[in-house]
């Protein structure tokens, strides 16, 4: 797998570099560090950013025996950051983009659709939004909506897990934020049932969880299907915290046409509010 790591030289970009390098090391992948400048006069500045990033990458991309596991390439592009990251990803056929983001974006930063958000919307491949602490990938939270079953995210995780040398622990989570629309509604027990019961009874949620678990089964990972009840975003973030997950995996908001305007972008809300890395597939 080829990993593209975008950096602008800021602290949150450094986090992206470290996270990307760690992931490249764990999955034996090649990585490319990319920086974008607005005009050619800033080449020297770009080179300084690249040199710093390469240093960080080599530090994090080194195996326990001191051997540099992941080879590092570098690129400098001219233009708008989000567009150039996406173009590079397309041209280079990368399997993953790693970007940083403002840790706590203020209202203006949120309104102006920062680079990260634009990359996520237009990227031809999964995007890892690096946040929180950098460390070996052990505990993953896969969020399942039922939009596609099994999800693309499960497919990507399966490929990723296959490349790793250690066993992952994956919590497959579906959040039921439903309440009864009226006392006449039937099957209320589903609103409070645990994952095992939903899977046993073959309810829609149970079927989605079963499908994900079956898809991930061949990774050899330790799987925990789970259902929570409450607001989707709140429950996902609480599960990430309570389960001490170091990576959240969610599907991208990729509805087409008028559905894009009707449906809420929960992926974006999770990516903004999470205090740990989010992988958007």
């Amino acid at each position, binding site marked *: 797998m080829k990993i593209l790591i975008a950096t602008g030289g800021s602290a949150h970009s450094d986090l992206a570099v470290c996270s990307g390098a760690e992931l490249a090391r764990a999955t034996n992948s090649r990585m490319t560090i990319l920086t974008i400048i607005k005009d050619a006069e800033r080449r020297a500045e770009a080179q300084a950013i690249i040199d710093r990033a390469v240093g960080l990458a080599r530090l994090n991309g080194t195996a326990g025996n001191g051997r540099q596991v992941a080879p590092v390439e570098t690129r400098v592009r001219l233009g708008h950051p989000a567009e150039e990251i996406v173009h590079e990803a397309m041209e280079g056929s990368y399997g993953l983009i790693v970007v940083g983001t403002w840790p706590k974006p203020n209202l203006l930063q949120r309104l102006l659709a920062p680079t990260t958000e634009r990359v996520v919307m237009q990227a031809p491949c999964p995007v890892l939004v690096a946040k929180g602490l950098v460390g070996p990938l052990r505990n993953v939270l896969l969020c399942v909506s039922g939009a596609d079953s099994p999800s693309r995210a499960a497919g990507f995780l399966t490929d990723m897990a296959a490349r790793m040398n250690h066993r992952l622990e994956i919590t497959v989570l579906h959040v039921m934020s439903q309440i*009864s*629309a*009226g*006392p006449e*509604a039937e099957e209320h027990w*589903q609103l409070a049932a645990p994952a095992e019961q939903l899977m046993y009874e073959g309810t829609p949620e149970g079927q989605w969880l079963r499908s994900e678990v079956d898809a991930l089964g061949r990774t050899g990972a330790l799987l925990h299907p789970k259902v929570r009840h409450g607001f*989707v975003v709140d429950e996902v973030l609480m599960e990430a915290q309570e389960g001490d997950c170091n990576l959240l995996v969610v599907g991208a908001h990729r509805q087409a046409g008028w*559905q894009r305007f*009707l449906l*809420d972008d929960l992926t974006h809300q999770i990516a903004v509010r999470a205090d740990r890395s989010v992988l958007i597939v």
Partner: protein
Amino acid sequence: MSGDPHLTDPTLATLESPPMVSFPAESAIAGQAVRVAWRKIAWHKVLLFAASLFLFTLAITLMKEGARELATLLDSHSAVDNALNSLGFGWLLAYLVMSGSPVAASALTFFDAGIIDQVGAYTMITGSRLGASFIVLFIGFLYVLRGRGKAESLGIGLLSLIVTGTTYVFALGFGYGLLTTGLLDGVQLQTGALLNSATDLVFDPLASVLLNLLPRWSLFLVGLGIILLSFGLFDRCMPQFTLKKSQLGRMSRLVYRPWVMFLLGGSITLVSMSVSVSLGILVPLSARGFVRRENLIPYIMGANITTFVDTLLAAVLLRNPAAFTVVLVEMVSIALVSAVILATFYHRYERSLLSAVGWLTMRDRNLGYFMVAIFLVPVILMLF
């Protein structure tokens, strides 16, 4: 001579000419389409709707006549003479009648008759909405008594009541300001001479007939009864929603943007004219009668605005511009407060409301305190 073998040899012409096929004329096809469409129209529902509208107009006419007599009767004995006790009165009356719209219509007829002033009419209508939102909760109670779980039966009713309570309380002050400054006085809907003539020609004679049989003040109560009947008929002419496989039917699974659900709640209630009916529609609209928490609150907020359409119609029928302004102020103030909540602190508001519902359904005692409060508050308001 053309040299065409088909024309020179009649035998060949007979054997080889294409079979005669007659195509119906375009007008016949159009006529068939009209007949098919005609048969698909649910005429009984159209008749029900017409009857409902007829009865509604008759009810307003009677209530208007009766309220004028009540004004003289209640003048010296009236406990409804300021904004606070009007709020309490509308609230309690809606509990009694189990509906908000007749009480809102009553508020306008009282205002028209001079029993209450414009601010009193505004707060009485607000009270009617607070009382009306109890109805869904009451239906939930009946299911609890029949053995259903508390949270499942009461959740949506409690949520509806709390959303209504919070938005209307925020809107009260804003609406009061709009009313007293007269900012919306110039916005009026003209009934037109044709409608006025029609109502004078048809309904005034009917009111006269009843006047000969009953005391004038009782026409108000007769009108109230007829208006309840008209809403009952209207509910029966609502289409049956079975959109389980449509985009709308996926409401139980998908999370829609708050503004989308807000507009949906407003649109559906524009047709149903009742928040409780709009909430009831959610059951067949979703596959299993479940709705995502994220979708529900903005839906109720939208429904709380267009539920006033029938009250607006009542104001038009009363031919009282000031009454029209009262209803318009009600709608505008709720709409603005809802828009501000959705645009600014919506998620915090959403979580607070759902935590409140969770707390209320956690223990019987909590629910008990709440029920006492929603009966005690309007009674206390009446004492002012």
